[in-house]
């Protein structure tokens, strides 16, 4: 009984509150067969912003599991097969450029060989928007402990642009925003109450992406 109560308390403490919102806009009808595949790529640019690799990995992992798994081609394998056309500075920035890309020798053949139907570009990141509080920890010959409290608020904001590689068009966009505040309370022992907005955005976006590409 005590063990259960402690487990529930630990889980409740470890999971902070996260609020998330998923929005979708569809530009074309979608659908895919079991042998067709999808690729998830993170947008990278040469400023201070880049979609985390862990985020695209998280989406690919979720899509590859569940009752209706989708065949997801690893991003590195896709980029190597289509080198040099999907590097950060050479990748198409809009679906309008797909026609020009597919006219390059061998590109259409490689996409057909891998049977890639959809490409989802993930753009966004998770940033700490606020932090505060203070906590100090001491240790001495008589023992030690932490006192105080600190917090940090994180905002995860991502958008997936889905391109249909068979019709060479944009199929739609899905955006995921999640916000949460984590706390670290020092009451002799440091007790973390962690919110994981990045994880919430990943789950929300992946599930919506699955519904989107499988179609109505």
């Amino acid at each position, binding site marked *: 009984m005590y063990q259960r109560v402690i487990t529930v308390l630990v889980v409740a403490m470890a999971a902070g509150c996260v609020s998330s919102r998923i929005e979708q806009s569809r530009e074309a009808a979608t659908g895919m067969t079991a042998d067709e595949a999808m690729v998830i790529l993170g947008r990278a640019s040469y400023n201070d912003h880049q979609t985390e690799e862990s985020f695209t990995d998280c989406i690919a992992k979720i899509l590859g599991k569940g009752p209706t798994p989708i065949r997801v081609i690893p991003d590195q394998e896709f980029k190597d097969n289509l080198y*040099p056309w999907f590097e*950060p500075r050479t990748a198409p920035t809009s679906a309008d450029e797909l026609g020009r890309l597919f006219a390059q020798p061998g590109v259409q053949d*490689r996409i057909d060989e891998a049977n890639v139907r959809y490409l989802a570009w993930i753009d966004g990141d998770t940033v700490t928007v606020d932090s505060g509080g203070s906590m100090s920890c001491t240790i001495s010959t008589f023992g030690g402990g932490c006192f105080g409290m600190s917090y940090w608020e994180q905002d995860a904001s991502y958008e997936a642009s889905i391109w249909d590689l068979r019709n060479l068009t944009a199929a739609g966009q899905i955006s995921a925003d999640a916000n949460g505040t984590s706390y670290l309370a020092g009451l002799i022992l440091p007790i973390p109450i962690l919110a994981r907005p990045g994880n919430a955005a990943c789950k929300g976006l992946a599930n919506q992406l699955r519904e989107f590409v499988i179609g109505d």
Partner: protein
Amino acid sequence: MSHLKYRTHLVAMVMVVILAGCTTNVIVEGTVPTPLVAKIPATIGVYFSDEFKTFEYKEVMRESGTWKINLGKQNLSFFQNLLSSMFNGVEEVPEPPFQSGEMQHLDGVIVPRIVKYGFLTPSISGLKFYSASIQYQILLYDRSGDIIGDWNIVGYGKSESGAFGADDALGEATLLAIRDGGARIAIEMSQQPQIATWLQNISSAGVE
């Protein structure tokens, strides 16, 4: 007071010695993709200098000690594969200048060189990434050994600091910089005015 100053100096010296002794060795490794581009209708020679083949960059930073980045091996295999895929024929040749008539079976000779390598750690840039840049120079020689083209390209790469250790993250950023430079060479080489003129001359010589 002077005793305190002496101790401060001693601690500072010890710190410097400790940091200098701390070396981060970065070995750049990764896949060598074959570029998917139309072949340039020319047979070329390529000269890889020993400096290019074994390129290593070393920098001592006050905050993080010595960094040694060994990118020569990966860079060489990347360029060998890149150029073989871009041209109808490629063979390795000795260093220019050439003996008279030595290169008559070739349309030209390419000599790639690393001009500059640089990197930033998150503590310097204030960003979440390790970033690297490589400036390449591509020299194009005609059969007689005269330089007819000189092209500079910069490849950039960056990698999250959280995902790997410092050495792996910088290795990844350097690998991405090699890929980026290679991508620009593969896509833009035939569009360079000097190289376009050279190709025109080759094709008109072939017609004659």
